[in-house]
């Protein structure tokens, strides 16, 4: 698991909160963390029990990624079948675009996310189509360096 960091890169400011257990997420499935006033965050679980978190919004036309089919370390967007990498939030070629990713920590089967990230990154409601594409680029640019 990578070191957590918020958008400014200050890792010491992390504020981990337990949201669920790994078992609460279906294998090759996902759950949502609601962020009132902002787009939900989707958390995914693969067959190796790795857990990933992405903004629940496809960089293409804003589809809810939490509703997609999970395979390997990817999810297929339910609207137009773009394949989004769970680890980096980026579309697989030839499609282009990224969605915001969020740090996840799993300890003793407890799934934790950083509330600082959740309350600061990719805020606002889902907007559709072209506007999202611009937002997606911004999100990619803002992604903290690993």
């Amino acid at each position, binding site marked *: 698991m990578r070191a957590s960091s918020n958008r400014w890169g200050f890792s010491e400011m992390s504020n981990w909160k337990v*949201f*669920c257990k790994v078992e*609460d*997420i*279906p*294998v*090759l*499935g996902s*759950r*949502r*963390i*609601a*962020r*009132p006033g902002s787009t*939900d965050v989707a*958390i995914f679980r*693969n*067959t190796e029990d790795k857990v990933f978190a992405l903004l629940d919004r496809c960089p293409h*036309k*804003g*589809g*809810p990624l939490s*509703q*997609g*089919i*999970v*395979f*390997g370390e*990817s999810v*297929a967007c*339910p*609207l137009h*079948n773009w*394949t989004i990498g769970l680890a980096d939030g980026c579309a697989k070629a*030839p499609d282009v675009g990224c969605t915001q990713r969020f740090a996840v920590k799993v300890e003793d089967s407890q799934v934790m996310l950083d*509330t600082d990230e*959740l*309350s600061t990154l990719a805020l606002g409601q*889902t907007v*559709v189509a072209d506007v999202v594409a611009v937002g997606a680029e911004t999100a990619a640019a803002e992604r903290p360096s690993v």
Partner: protein
Amino acid sequence: MKKMKLVMVGNGMAGVRTLEELLKIAPDLYDISVFGAEPHPNYNRILLSPVLAGEQTLDEIVLNPIAWYEEHGIKLHLGKKVVDVNRARRIVIAEDGTEEPYDRLLIATGSNPFIPPLPGKDLKGVIAFRDIADTHVMIETAKTHKHAVVVGGGLLGLEAANGLMSRGMDVTLVHLAPWLMERQLDDVAGGLLRKSLEERGMNFRVETQTQELVGGPDGRVTSIKFKDGSEAPADLVVMAAGIRPNTELAQKIGLHCGPQKGGGIVVNDTMQTITDPRVYSVGECASHRGIAYGLVAPLFEQGKVCATHLAEFGIGRYTGSTTSTKLKVTGIDLFSAGNFMGGPECEEIVMSDPYGGVYKKLVLQDDKLVGACLYGDTVDGSFYFKLLREGRSIADIRDKLMFGESHLGDSGHAGQNKAAAMADADEVCGCNGVNKGTICKAIKEKGLFTLEEVRKVTKASASCGSCTGLVEQLLMFTAGGDYSAAPKKKAMCACTDASHQDVRDAIRSEHLLTIASVYERMSWRTPNGCSSCRPAVNYYLISTWPKQAKDDPQSHFINERSHANIQKNGTYSVVPRMWGGTTNSSELRRIADVVDKFKIPTVKVTGGQRIDLLGVKKEDLPAVWQELGMPSGHAYGKTLRTVKTCVGSEWCRFGTQDSTKLGIDLERALWRMYAPHKVKLAVSGCPRNCAESGIKDVGVIGVDSGWEVYVAGNAGIKTEVAHFFCKLKTAEEVLEYAGAFLQLYREEGWYLERTVHYVARVGLDYCKAKVLDDAANRKALWERLQFSLDGEPDPWFEFEKAGVDARQFQPVGVL
């Protein structure tokens, strides 16, 4: 570990394609060196014709720039002709003395133009049309000289003649046979082609043999003399009398070559030379099962097989290709494949409109399409080519065959069928909004050659596929690729080489019950498939082994997991079931109450006679279902959707049968039926057919004496009128026959294949044999369907039994 050394002799399209395939699957296995006799990196030789015609530039046809070789660490020896190979010591020797040792050697020397041994063939101004240098000579000569003669009226000769003419030369084309392109066209099509080119100003001398080329004092050709004594002025003579595999090096180093005049280096199915297993050969120089191919698609297939073998995967065999031909002369559409001449054993279907410039000939033998020759309208070329390769019986579509695949409606691209006539801004793919310019740009810039590649990069024709013919034409004109020689067997997806049929067969014959066991048994490349193969495999398991194989909810598209239709903004639509399209006041009242209570923004009547509630939030779905208190309409699944009915004899003054009752009975018997794709039925009470039975998977029409049953209709992208299947006396019979037909489709259809496609694939006669002629089989099918459906839960009310994960409706937490 020390890398092995791979040396390639020849730097052309087939060879470099092989390297590309190899680098994709085993990038670090070899140190690679390439020898090219020409001073250029790999370019698209097929596009020399458009370059000559001034439609493209040389820069545009380079496929792999020098940087590509550097990027992949390939040592490139340009302008060095290989003159010898010491096979004992495994060293390649070039003309200038350069040596390269090898562990594996790939010979891809291509072909040489055949120059007939005529007096004067070595004069200045006498050239072939094979490489960039020849093209340069032609372009330069056109600037300073007037008279050009092209010898040979085949594909290449015509393209050369057309190019020279467009550069302002006065061109005479000399041809030995009585008509042009006699190896690709019959006499009629050849005549039309000649007429069209004559109208553009080209001169022809057919059935004419050349005697000699006459030179002037400066050593340059001045005229051409024919056997009949006549003569024509000539400042430039282009020899296009065919090509021969370039086996000079191979013969010198003792590799076995084919005996006949055109014989190439003999290779086996893994593209190894039969003389020396360390030495491979691909491309125009290779002779596989007696054939040296000259078109790009088979050569790329060879390259792929060769690459997997070089990569030591040991999979894949090349087993030969059926090829087709198209001419790259702008404004002339021409297609031929197979045995286009016909013969005593064959039958022909011909459509000829010489004034309209359209000619189509289809050659049939034993109810199969064995050849096609199209002139003027080639949009159905790929359709015929597919039928030809598949070798399926066309008896059931014979009456419509001549009109092609698209005659029954072709939505999405404004009925266009000539890509060349379209403007760059014109939309080709209506589903994905891709215009002609975008496709051509992608083909050029990304070096695309196949339909699949274009679909992947641009999405054009990747959704409904109705514009496939147009995209193929664009590929033809832009890349010159012989796009259509796709392999007979298509892999399910990138996770596997297995086809849909392979997977179905294995699941049945080996009694496989889980997705994991299928993936293991069939050596899937990915741990848990992808969004395209996993739903398919899951369907094959539960349809082959009902009540044994367990349905996997995570292998369903979201609509079948949430039992509602996802909309563009992430909300859902809910369609409650109304048997046969009938409802009553209490259902309508409940619907109205639900709409108010859950603030559902849109209520719409559907084409299938149901009521659609759009814009329901996912969290509200379970409560909406409960309060509606109506069964799931399955409007979201690969399932029976609706049975549409007219009011029938109960009310209608024309009605002959009680269509509403039969529709309700059918719907009650078949609801919850999952299938390869959605299934729609209709029942009309008289031949006025108000329920539109003619465009349904199963359509029933009441007549005074009983019921007519139609199957495999489709109202979608390609509107297809259903085929008459049988006439029955009673409603009970309709249930049994319709059910048996649908069960056949459920057991044999490929995932996402509608009945229209399934029946097109297996043939209506096959379905009739299984359902109509074989009563025992019909009853068995009908029983198996009932067994499958027995006890199937309603997913709106029986979450546990239906495997509905109720957790999905609530967030796991709130920030």
